[in-house]
């Protein structure tokens, strides 16, 4: 998993719960990385899962909420650091469609080893679009947060409904309906 996800995760934990929490999570972790993360590096996916579970244990906030919140946090980082991607699309749906076709293609160029989820899309009329998320990591809720913030970013109020297609959450469908 890309280093940026870890650094951003700990940035968010520090800002919400203070560095003590960050320290606790690292101390609790059994991972090899030992809490040393850099945005340009790449680390095993299991480590973030361990950190999220430990945070849940410590704060008793449900994991889904934690991931959804983290998605929202990640979005603002992306919107700042990678504004070009957002500018390239005029509206939310165009942007959502461009994730798979454009953004992920560019990410692969920088990080050839990155394992990215797939996002296929289908429009249903002017107001509705369906996104099909698919990933072994089953981090649909992270994506949920990202989508919600995207709609806000484009100032297009919308209802976002998330449905698991498979029980393990490796396949999820988002139905986004503009208001």
């Amino acid at each position, binding site marked *: 998993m890309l280093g940026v996800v870890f650094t951003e995760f700990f940035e968010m934990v520090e800002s919400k719960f203070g560095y003590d929490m960050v320290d606790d999570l*690292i101390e609790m972790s059994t991972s090899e990385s030992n809490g040393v993360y850099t945005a340009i590096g790449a680390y095993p996916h299991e480590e973030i899962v361990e950190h999220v579970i430990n945070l849940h244990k410590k704060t008793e906030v449900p994991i889904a909420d934690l991931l959804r919140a983290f998605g929202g946090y990640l979005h603002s980082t992306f919107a700042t650091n990678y504004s070009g991607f957002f500018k390239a699309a005029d509206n939310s749906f165009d942007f959502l469609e461009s994730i798979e076709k454009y953004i992920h293609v560019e990410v692969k160029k920088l990080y050839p080893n990155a394992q990215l989820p797939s996002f296929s899309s289908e429009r249903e009329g002017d107001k509705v679009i369906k996104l099909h998320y698919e990933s072994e990591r089953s981090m649909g809720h992270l994506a949920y947060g990202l989508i919600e913030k995207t709609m806000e970013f484009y100032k297009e109020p919308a209802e976002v409904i998330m449905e698991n297609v498979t029980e393990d959450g490796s396949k999820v469908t988002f139905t986004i309906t503009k208001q």
Partner: protein
Amino acid sequence: MSKEIEILKRRLERERAARKQAESILESKAKELYEVNQSLESLVKNRTLQLRQSEKRYRSIVETADDIIYNIDSNGNFSFVNPAGLQNTGYTEQEIIGESFIKVIRDDYKEKVQGFYLDVLNNSKNKTYYEFPIITKMGTTLWLGQNVKIIKDEQGIASFTVLARDITKRKITESELLLAQNKLQKSELKYRSIMENMELGLLEVDNDGNIIKPYPRFCQMVGYTEEELIGKNAETTFLNSEEEIAAAKKRNETRLENKSEVYESKIRRKDGSLVDVIVSGAPFHDPYGNIIGSIGIHYDNTATKKLTAEIKEARFIAENAQKAEAEFLANMSHEMRTPLNAIIGMSHLLQDATLNPDETEYLDILSISANVLQNLISDVLDLSKIDAGKLELQHKPFDLLKLINNLERTFALKLEEKNVSIKTVTNFKQEHLLVGDELILNQILMNLLGNAEKFTSHGHIIIYLTEKESTDKHLNIELAVEDTGMGMSPSQLEKIFEQFKQASSEIRQEYGGTGLGLAITRKLIGLLDSEIKVNSQEGVGTKFYFDLSLEKTDIEIGKVQAHLDKKIEFSKVDLPVLVVEDNPMNQKYITKLLEKWRFDYHLAHNGKEGWEMTLENKYAMIFMDFQMPIMNGYESTAKIRQEGNPNFTTPIIALTASTLLSKKQNALDSGMDDFLSKPFNPKQLSEVIIKHLPNTDSTVPTETTDQDAGSLGAFQFSRKLDFTYLEENYGDDLEYYLDIIDTFLSIIPSEMELIHENSTNKSFTEVAGLLHKIKPTFTMVGAPEISKEFEHLEKSAKNNEESVFSEIKTITGKVDELISEIKKEKGIVQHFLTQNDKR
């Protein structure tokens, strides 16, 4: 506090570790980048090299290409032209780059080319190929065929890359071909239209005879429309019978052998009527030379056919009419001549009677007048016969002087009442009979004298008989009739020899006549191979004259009668002669002569009687009249010529008053051996007898035997002369030699005199003429070397060489010597001949 420090410591630791981690990642990334960069550089280097090579390759292609390659920039100016382009157009790079493309296009194509490429540009057309002419720097036309690549920049402004080819040769060939095709089409059209205008119907059919194209005139000819005919079979449509169709099939076969032909045919029109046509049929070919059908040119021959039939009919009628006319003339001639024969015949018999001089003269006049009458009757007949080429020219011995004298006497009698005298003037001393057509000559002179008599009221008429040249075989004379009559003007002279034309209409009124006389005369003289000439002066008189060449015989004048008598008396004929003749007077004439010549004869009064007599007696000879009652001469002859008749081979001589050759041919065809035209004289009769009874002639001695008996051959010609030549030419005729000598001696001295005179006057032309004239004479008397010298002198004289006059003086001596030699020779010849006569 320590916990906080612990946490901070750990945090610092983590941050440092993360930084180091990041640094090492960055370092490895940088290294990675460097390596990628390195490989990129070499890649770029390679690519650049490849690009350069490729460019070089393309450049060399562009520069060495035979095709013209050029670029046109967005302003329509040349931005690049390859060497082939420069070479073809004759421009240098400096001259053409920056110049407008439109400028080089030939004026008449400028708009077309612009229009074409505008259309390509505006409508994004793929096909950019176009052909057009440009004008080279040399001013010649160059045809280009080009493909264009259009290149648009960001602003959408187009420039062009063009690949063009010189197609001038092809264009020229194309235009020549077009021109030739055009010409061919025009010429074909021209000839078709000519043929159409000539009313020739053209029809094209395929090899099976099915009509491909009928031309308008043909359609008109047969009464069908073009549409009706196309696809129809020509043979079954137009031909009328199985035979004709079969013949057409045969023609089709020969047509496949590439032969053409012309034939006549009848073709059926739409309305069923038939047209006679002349067809010229010929095969025609596709462009590969295969025969794909034939073309027939039809000429409507109906009118010609009809005309031919009419002409045939007309000719048939005309021929019949002509035949009838000839028959009529022949019969008339017979009817008139028979009584005349009797008169002439009886007068001949009277000549044998003893008469006093007055009676003899009356008899002569009687006989001449009868002859005149006969000739007059013949006049019109003759003209038609001459015109028809049927007049038979006689070659018989006759007495020219006697003929002239008789004529003179005849006309003297006529002129007694007028104040006009007639006489004959002649230098002719006749010794022998001449051969010719006495009747024709008589008629010629009769006509001329008759004319003279008619138009002369006072003065004289003179008959001139002038001997011009005489050898032992031939005599050349000039005959002339001169009068002191009214004469004629030059314009009248032009007309007088034309048929039915007289000098003027007044003459016809005053003097009468048919206008045939001089026309006949001229034609008769023409028959004798001569030409009539006339001199005339109004109020003074007229002279008609003509030359005549006659053969001499060896029969001497005056001996004729004795000669004949002797011959016949000597004959010993055992068998009698049969005369088959119905006219009593003719019977008397012929039998009296036979009696006189001591022939036995039998007489039959018609063909039947004659034939019956031939069954009982054998005859030496039979005289057979043509036209007789009961049975005519032809039938009788045919019967006698039947096998078993004792006179099967006896000579039969036809006696005919007809002068028509056809009648005579009839006689020979029916089995007769010869014919005798009535009236005949005793001599003609005796000649026929001698001809067909050769034995009667056997005892008559000839002059040749006389000569053989003598010793003339022993004469020695002078050795000073060319005796070989003299012997060859005069060896058997010394008298002729003597004649030549006399002539020589009489002319040479005076001629030499003339030469001397002209020689003194130095007149070259005259001298040359005189030398030429007497030159051959010396050879004739055996001095050919003098002839040669004269020839040489003649040349000198012609070239105006002064030397000729002195040379003439030299040769005169030689000629004088020759003259004295010839005089000696003359004496010797005369002596020799006298000696021989005595023997």
